[in-house]
Structure formats: C-alpha cells, structure tokens
C-alpha cells in the first residue's frame, strides 16, 4: 500500500515538474511578446543593420545595451550565461536576446535544446 502511495507521489512530482517546465517556456515566450509590443514597428530599422559597433551600442536602449555588450564580451553564449553576467533573470535575458536577433544585431543558433546567441563577424570563427 505504502509503495503504491510512493509511486503515486513520484508520478505526481514528475507531472508537477513537467507543468513547471511548460510554464517556464510559456513565461519566456510571454516576455518576448511583451518586449516586441514595447518596440513599435516604426522604431525598427528599415533595413537590417550590418554591424554591432560601439556607436550602435550607444544608440540602443539601456536594457538592450547591457545584453548586447555581454554578448560582445562572451562571443557566443546562451541566455543562461548572459544572465549570469548581468545578474538579471534568464527569461528577461532570453527576451532581450531574441529582440536583438529580430533587430538584426545578433544571430541565433540552436544546438539540441540550447540556443546560442552571437555577433556575426565575417571571417572569424564563432
């Protein structure tokens, strides 16, 4: 009887973990949508920018500049690695990184379950 209870509890825990994981993913997507709504379409550059140079970094809003500089320093990183440096929440960094990708300043590459963000520099290995 007790062992059945244990099994039930374990499966409940697994279910809860799955729900939590799904909620985290949803939260991340919501953050991206909120960030995109904040940025009105007319503010987006007409043509995709070709370089994340210092003058471009200066023109970015404060919250995005911090994320962009961190990627410049790390070279190639996940939202987790950026969050570790900036001391902001992973979901927030994920939203900012995705916004920088949409703005054309960063590139994104998926390797398995992980998403890597980087600045594309022609002729240089990532």
């Amino acid at each position, binding site marked *: 009887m007790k062992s059945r209870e244990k099994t039930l509890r374990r499966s409940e825990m697994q279910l809860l973990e799955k729900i939590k994981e799904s909620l985290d993913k949803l939260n991340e997507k919501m953050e991206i949508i909120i960030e995109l709504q904040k940025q009105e379409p007319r503010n987006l550059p007409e043509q995709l920018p*070709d370089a994340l*140079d*210092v*003058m471009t970094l200066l023109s970015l809003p404060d919250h995005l500049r911090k994320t962009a500089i961190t990627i410049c320093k790390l070279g190639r990183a996940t939202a987790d690695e950026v969050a570790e440096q900036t001391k902001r929440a992973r979901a927030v960094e994920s939203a900012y990184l995705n916004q920088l990708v949409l703005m054309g300043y960063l590139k994104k590459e998926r390797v398995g379950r992980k998403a890597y963000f980087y600045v594309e520099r022609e002729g240089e290995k990532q």
Partner: protein
Amino acid sequence: MKKIIAVHSYKGGTGKTLMSTNLAAIYAMNKYKVALFDMDFRAPSLHAIFKVNSTKYWLNDYLNGICNIKNVIVNCPSKVNDYLYLGLANPSTEAIREMSAKDRKWEMKALGRLLSLRNTLLNDLDFDYLIMDTSPGLQYSSINAIVSADTVIVITTMDISDIQGTQRMVRELYDLFEKKTGIIVNKVPIEMISTLEEREKLRKKYEEISNLPVIDVAPCFCDVLRLGGNTIFSLEKPEHPFTKILKEIATKIQKL
C-alpha cells in the same frame, strides 16, 4: 587586482600621454607587469617617446587581424624593461589615413579583438595592467578602448569647455557603458596648489562644481615641458615633486 585602464579626454593636449606613460612606468617600477598601448591611431606618439623606430608588427596589424597580440608587444627599452611592454601604433601617414577610413564592420571586429585582450594579456600572458592611451573625443578607436576597459581615467584641464565636455562624456558615454571613471584636473597653475591642503581643497571644489568623480588635481611644472617629451618624467626625475604626485595618483587609480 588585474586591470585594463583607458586614459581618455574630451579635448587634445590635456596630458593623456604624459599620464599614461608615467602610470605605466610607476606600476612597472613597483614590479607589476604592464602593457602600455598607443590607441591614438590618428597621432601616434609612444614610438617617439620610447624611441622604438621600427617593429615587425603594429597594433594596427593586430586590429586588422593579420597577427597575434604576442607579435605586437615589444619589450620597453627603459630602466624598467623587465616589467614594461609596449604596443605601438603605426605612425606612417599611409597607416593613419588607412585607420581613419575604416567602416563600421571593421570597427565591430576591432572591438571583438580588443575585448579578447582581457583573456590573452591578463590571463595567458599574466600582465597585471593594460594601459591604453587613446585619442581625444568621440573617436571609434577611443570608444572601443573604453568599452574594453575596466576603468576610464579622464584628463581635463581647468578650461570650461574641457570641463563641460568631460561632464557630457561621463553622462553620455562612460555611464552608459557602466565604467568606473576617475577625473584628473591637469595643468593647474602650481601657485594654486602649493600645499597638500590646497590641492585637496581644489579637488573637492572641482568635484562639487562639476559633479564629477575628481580623483586628483595635478600641477603644471615647467620641468615637464623642458624635457620635451623626450623621456618618462617619473623615471628621469624620481625625486621631483611632480613624480611624487604622479605616484599618489597611480595609487588612487589602483584603488578605484
């Protein structure tokens, strides 16, 4: 603690190179391994001060991606040569012209190369300090150096346009990149700060009126001008009162 220091100013002729070379020499005399880089590609000067007339590779080559930073660094021909190393900018007119015509993509790659110096110089080559002497104002090369640095030392004169320009740069440049900043008011007439108390009083006054983090005020000594930039002042005149002030400034910068 290991540190990358960019020495910058709003206007030209404020004493950036004098401060950079002496800071580097003082840290090297204290047995810190120092790299001093000439990031003023519009008007290079370290090759002349340290009398290095030719080198196989310049900092220009490193930023152009055609060599490694190890190929650029040269041992300094001075009294502290075991500890002081130089990265020189190419002073030829052709190189200056070429550097001033770079596009945004090149500047982005150059920033990446400068950012990677933290790992190569401070970790792999075990340098304690990298000091970058920059061009005045909002030049690409200077802002790249500022972004790569931990601390920015800004040299200003008492000139009102210089002070106001420095205030703008603090608000609109250093603060945006979240840099530790220290201001030095240089070329103050010696009679205004003939005692330590007067110097501290003037420092506080500048800090209050400008709302800037003024770390010190430094006097204008004719002895500095007499040397004509031919040598490193603190090495040439170790007992001079100006050397004493430079040493105090160097200690304050270490604590920033």
